[in-house]
C-alpha cells in the first residue's frame, strides 16, 4: 500500500515537485493579508465576563486608553519657569495627537478659587513666563496638596510630572494605535531637543498596545534568523549531505509558508504568541524529515539504490510519522480551549503547519530527494552507546524505578509552589522601552495598574445626595488606607473643594456639602465653567446616578490584585450594601485571565489526552499499553511545573497552555519506544528485558537526537523579549527533556516490572 503509493510519487516526481511549488505559492499568497494586532483586548474572548464588565464601564463613562508623558527635569525641579513652560507647550500640542480626546497636566488642571463672590475656574498655570518665585511656590503647594494631582500628575517631591492624554480609538483600522504612538514619539523627540533639560518617557495602555506588534516584529527579526541557522546546522550535522539538507530545508520552509498563508486566508491577526508558531512548526517538521532520510541512508548503506531505499523508508516510517503528526496536531488544537484567542491562533497555525509538514514529507520530500543526487554515507554513530545505556537501565531497573518515581513525586509535589501571575507590563522584558519606562513611572511618579469603580445609586441625580456623598467619601478614605493603593481619583474631592471655594476659600469648609440641591447646583456651576475636553463626563454618567472612582495601584501580582478586589468588594457589600459598586480595568481582566485560562485548559488538555490515548490504543492495538503510555505522557508536564515552581514560581496564561501543547509532542517518544518494544515482544517473541534492549538499540539514538532538536528549537523561542513566548519556550523545553528522561529511565523499568507482576499476554 505505502510502497505502491511511494512508487507512484517517485514516478511522477517532477509533477509532484511542481504541484507542491504551485500549492505553496497559492496558499502562501494569503500571508500578504496578515497584519499585527495592537489591542491588549485581543487576549480576551468576546464573552469574557471581565471584558464585558469593562466595556460596560467604558460605555457608561468614557474609554480611557491613554498615553502618559512622564517628564523628568534634570535639575529635579518641576516648578520652575522653564519646566512649566515646557509642560504647557507639550500639553497644548498633545491635543493634536490622533484620537486624543482629553489632556490633563499640572498646567491645565482646572483650579478653582473664590474671587470676591465669584467662582473662578481656570488653568492652574495659564502663562508660565510671567511667574515669580512666589507664584511658583504657590502653584507647587496647590499641586502637591491637590488629591486629584499628587501621585498622578505630580510626584510629592515635585521632581517628576506627568501629562496624561486620553485616547479614544474608534477601533476601525489597524493604523490607529501606531499613528497615535508615532505622533507622541515625534513630540517626545521634538521637545527633548527643544528643552534639553528634560527627559521624556512614554507609558500607558496605548503604548502597551503598540508594544505588542513591536515585540512581534522584534521576535521575527531576532529569532527567525537564529531558527533558520539552527535548522541548517542541525540538518548538515545529522544528514551529512547537501541534497538531504536542501530538501528538508525547503520542506520546512514550505510548511511554515503554508501555515502562515492559511492563517492569512483565514483572517488571523498576528500577535506575539502567534509569532512563535513558525519556530514550533520548524522544530516539529525536522523530526519527520530526519526519520525518513536517516532510514533511507541506512537502506542505501545496505546497498539499495535511492528509489528502493526511499520506498523502504516510507514503508517503515509512514505510520509512525502519521501517528505522531496526528497526536501533535491534537495537542496543538487543544489550545482552542484556551480563554485567550491569541492562543487559539497559535494552536491552529502550529497544527496546520505540522499537518503541512507531514503532507510535504510524504509527497514533496520523496519526490525531490530522488531527483537530487544522493550517495550513501556512513551510519549515524552512537548506536552502541545507546545499547549499553539500555543494558544499564535493564540491570538496575528496580533501583531506577524507585529513584525515578521518587524524583517525579518530589517534583510533582512542588507544583503548588507556582503562583498565578499575569502582570501585563511584565509580558515585556527589560530590553523593551515600554517595560523600562513603565517601571520608571511606577517607581517615581504613579502606578501603571489601576481599577475603576463605578459607585451607583440607581437614582437619577443620586450622586448629589449627601448620604451618597458621605458613603463615597468613606469609600475613598477606606481605599486610601489600603497599602496597595497609590492614588484615588474621586468626585468627592471636587465637591469639598467647591464647598470651600463657595465659602470664600475658608479651609474650614473643605467638606462635603450637606444639602442635595446645593451639591447639585455646585456641580452644575462647576460643569458650566469647565473648558472643552476637561469636562466631568469621564467621572459621572449621563443620569448622574453613578460616579467613577479610579484607584491607581502599586505593581502587584495577579493574586494580590484579586485579593484586593475581593477585599474591596466585601467591604462595599458590608458597609454600603445599598450602592452598586463594581470594580473593573485591564489590570483586573488580566488578573482573572490566568485562572480562567487554567480552568479552560484543564478541559482542553483532558480532551486532548483522551483523544491521544484513543489514537495510541488503536495504534498499539492494546488497551493495556495505551493506558500505560499515559504515564510517560502526563508526568513530564507535571514534573516540569514542579521544576518551574522551584526555580521561577510564577505561571501565567502562556504556561497554562503548555501541558496540552506538549502532550502531543512528548507522546512521540512514547510512540516510537513502545512500538519498537511491542514489535519485539509480538514479532520476535522477546521477553520484556530483551524487548527493552531492542527498543533502546533501534530508537534510542533517534529519540535522543529528536529531543535535543526540539529542546534547542524551543530554547530559541525562550530567547524572545516577549515573556509569554519566552516562558512558553523554556517550559516546553523542560517538559521535553523530562519526557526523554522518563521514557528512558521510568518507562522501561515500569514495563519490566509490570511484566514481572503477572500478565504475560501482550
Amino acid at each position, binding site marked *: 500500500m505505502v510502497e505502491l503509493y511511494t512508487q507512484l510519487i517517485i514516478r511522477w516526481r517532477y509533477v509532484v515537485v511542481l504541484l507542491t511549488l504551485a500549492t505553496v505559492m497559492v496558499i502562501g499568497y494569503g500571508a500578504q493579508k496578515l497584519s499585527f494586532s495592537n489591542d491588549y483586548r485581543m487576549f480576551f474572548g468576546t464573552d469574557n465576563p471581565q471584558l464585558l464588565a469593562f466595556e460596560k464601564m467604558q460605555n457608561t463613562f468614557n474609554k480611557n486608553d491613554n498615553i502618559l508623558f512622564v517628564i523628568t527635569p534634570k535639575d529635579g525641579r518641576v516648578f520652575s519657569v522653564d519646566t512649566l513652560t515646557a509642560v504647557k507647550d507639550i500639553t497644548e500640542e498633545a491635543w493634536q495627537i490622533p484620537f486624543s480626546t482629553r489632556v490633563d497636566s499640572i498646567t491645565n488642571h482646572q483650579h478653582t478659587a473664590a474671587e470676591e463672590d465669584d467662582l473662578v475656574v481656570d488653568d492652574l498655570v495659564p502663562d508660565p513666563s510671567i511667574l515669580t518665585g512666589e507664584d511658583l511656590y504657590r502653584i507647587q503647594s496647590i499641586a502637591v496638596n491637590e488629591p486629584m494631582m499628587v501621585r498622578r500628575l505630580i510626584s510629592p517631591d515635585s521632581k517628576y510630572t506627568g501629562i496624561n492624554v486620553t485616547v479614544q480609538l474608534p477601533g476601525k483600522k489597524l493604523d490607529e494605535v501606531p499613528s497615535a504612538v508615532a505622533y507622541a514619539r515625534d513630540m517626545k523627540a521634538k521637545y527633548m531637543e527643544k528643552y534639553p533639560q528634560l527627559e521624556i518617557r512614554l507609558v500607558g495602555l496605548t503604548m502597551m498596545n503598540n508594544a505588542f506588534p513591536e515585540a512581534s516584529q522584534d521576535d521575527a527579526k531576532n529569532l527567525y534568523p537564529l531558527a533558520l541557522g539552527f535548522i541548517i546546522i542541525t540538518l548538515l550535522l545529522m544528514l551529512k549531505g547537501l541534497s538531504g539538507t536542501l530538501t528538508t530545508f525547503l520542506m520546512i520552509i514550505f510548511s511554515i509558508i503554508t501555515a502562515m498563508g492559511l492563517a492569512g486566508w483565514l483572517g488571523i491577526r498576528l500577535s506575539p504568541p502567534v509569532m512563535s508558531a513558525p519556530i514550533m512548526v520548524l522544530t516539529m517538521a525536522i523530526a519527520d524529515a530526519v526519520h525518513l532520510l536517516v532510514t533511507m541512508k541506512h537502506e542505501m548503506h545496505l546497498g539499495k539504490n535511492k528509489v528502493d531505499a526511499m520506498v523502504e523508508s516510507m514503508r517503515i516510517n509512514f505510520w509512525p510519522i502519521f501517528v505522531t503528526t496526528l497526536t501533535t496536531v491534537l495537542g496543538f488544537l487543544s489550545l482552542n480551549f484556551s480563554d485567550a484567542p491569541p492562543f487559539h491562533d497559535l494552536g491552529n497555525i502550529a497544527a496546520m503547519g505540522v499537518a503541512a509538514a507531514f503532507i510535504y514529507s510524504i509527497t514533496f520530500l520523496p519526490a525531490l530527494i530522488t531527483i537530487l543526487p544522493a550517495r550513501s554515507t556512513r551510519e549515524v554513530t552512537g548506536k552502541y552507546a545507546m545499547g549499553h545505556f539500555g543494558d544499564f537501565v535493564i540491570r538496575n531497573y528496580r533501583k531506577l524505578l524507585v529513584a525515578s518515581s521518587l524524583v517525579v513525586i518530589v517534583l510533582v509535589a512542588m507544583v503548588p509552589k507556582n503562583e498565578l501571575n499575569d502582570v501585563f507590563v511584565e509580558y515585556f522584558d527589560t530590553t523593551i522601552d515600554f517595560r523600562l519606562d513603565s517601571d520608571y513611572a511606577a517607581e517615581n511618579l504613579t502606578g501603571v495598574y489601576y481599577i475603576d469603580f463605578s459607585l451607583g445609586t440607581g437614582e437619577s441625580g443620586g450622586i448629589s445626595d449627601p448620604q451618597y456623598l458621605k458613603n463615597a467619601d468613606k469609600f475613598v478614605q477606606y481605599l486610601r488606607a489600603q497599602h496597595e493603593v497609590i492614588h484615588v481619583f474621586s468626585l468627592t474631592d471636587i465637591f469639598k473643594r467647591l464647598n470651600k471655594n463657595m465659602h470664600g476659600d475658608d479651609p474650614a469648609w473643605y467638606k462635603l456639602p450637606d444639602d*442635595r440641591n446645593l451639591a447639585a447646583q*455646585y456641580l452644575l456651576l462647576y460643569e*458650566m465653567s469647565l473648558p472643552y475636553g476637561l469636562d466631568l463626563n469621564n467621572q459621572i454618567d*449621563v*443620569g448622574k446616578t453613578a460616579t467613577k472612582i479610579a484607584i491607581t495601584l502599586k505593581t502587584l501580582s495577579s493574586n494580590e490584585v484579586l485579593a484586593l478586589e475581593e477585599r474591596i468588594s466585601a467591604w462595599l457589600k458590608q458597609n454600603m450594601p445599598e450602592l452598586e459598586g463594581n470594580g473593573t480595568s485591564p489590570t483586573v481582566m488580566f488578573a482573572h485571565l490566568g485562572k480562567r485560562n487554567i480552568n479552560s485548559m484543564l478541559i482542553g488538555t483532558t480532551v486532548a489526552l483522551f483523544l491521544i490515548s484513543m489514537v495510541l490504543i488503536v495504534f498499539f492495538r492494546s488497551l493495556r499499553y495505551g493506558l500505560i503510555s499515559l504515564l510517560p505522557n502526563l508526568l513530564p508536564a507535571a514534573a516540569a511545573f514542579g521544576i518551574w515552581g522551584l526555580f521561577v514560581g510564577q505561571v501565567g496564561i502562556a504556561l497554562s497552555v503548555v501541558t496540552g501543547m506538549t502532550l502531543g509532542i512528548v507522546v512521540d517518544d512514547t510512540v516510537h519506544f513502545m512500538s519498537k518494544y511491542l514489535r519485539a515482544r509480538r514479532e520476535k517473541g522477546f521477553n520484556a528485558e530483551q524487548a527493552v534492549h531492542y527498543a533502546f538499540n533501534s530508537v534510542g539514538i533517534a529519540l535522543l537526537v529528536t529531543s535535543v532538536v526540539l529542546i534547542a528549537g524551543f530554547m530559541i523561542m525562550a530567547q524572545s523579549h516577549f515573556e509569554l513566548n519566552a516562558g512558553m519556550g523554556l517550559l516546553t523545553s523542560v517538559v521535553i527533556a523530562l519526557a526523554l528522561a522518563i521514557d528512558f529511565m521510568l518507562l522501561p523499568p515500569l514495563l519490566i516490572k509490570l511484566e514481572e507482576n503477572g500478565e504475560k499476554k501482550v
Partner: protein
Amino acid sequence: MNRRMIQSTVAAVVVGLLPFTLVAETAEEKGLAIAVEADKRDEGFGDSTANMTMELRNKQGDSSTRYIRIKTLEVIGDGDKSMSIFDEPADVKGTAFLTFSHAIKPDEQWLYLPALKRVKRINSKNKSGPFMGSEFAYEDIASQEVEKYTYKYLRDETLNGIDCFVIERYPAYKHSGYTRQVAWINKAEYRPEKVVFYDRKNSLLKTLTYDGYQQYLDKFWRADQMNMENHQSGKSTTLTWSNYQFRTGLEDRDFNKNSLKRAK
C-alpha cells in the same frame, strides 16, 4: 472617450464656469454672503420663549432627561440676550442661566443658584465645554452672530431632497473646541439643516441635525428637534423644542442679574 467628446466636454465646462468667473466672487465672500443673508432673515423676531427637553444618551443605552425654559431677547447690533431656567432635574430646579452674547468681545454669563440664593459669574472662556453634561457645547446653541466665524463656501449639495449651500466656518473665538464646522444651509430658507463639527486636531467630532422646522410669524424658522451625535464617545443628545412664542413683550430689564433671581 474619443477626442471630440473630450473637446466638447472641456468646452462645456469652460462655458459653465463663465458666470462664476465673471462675478469673480471668492469662496470666502460667498460663504460670508450666505451667513449674512441667514442672519438677516432671522432679524426682527424681537423676543421669544420656548420649552426645551434635553435627552442625553450614552453608548451603554442609558438616558437622562432635563427640562429647561428659554427666553431670548433680540439685540440689534450685538449678540442676543438669553435666559435659561432649569425645571428638572429637581435638585437644580430654579437655577437660571443668563447670557449676553457678543459679536466680538467674549460673552458674559451668570448663573443663579437658588440653594445658595446667589448669582455667580461664569468664566466665559469656557463656553466650549459641555452644556449640562450634554453633547452640546454652549457655543453650539448660543446665538450665531455673523462675526463669530469666518466663512468659506464649499459647494452646492442636495441633503435629504433639500437644496443646500455647504459652507465651512472657522471660529474666531480663541478657546473654541473646534477648528471648523461644515454647515448645510437650506438654499430657499437660509436655515441650517446639518452641521458637522471638527475638533482641535481637525478630526470629525460631532454631527448636529435639525428636524421638524416650523415657521413662526410667517418668517422665523425654528427646528422642533436638534440631534447631536458625538462620533468619538458614542454619546448623543436630543433637544426637543415646544411652545415657541414670539414677541411676548420681554424687555431688557427681564435680562439682568436681578431678574435671574426672580426667574423661577
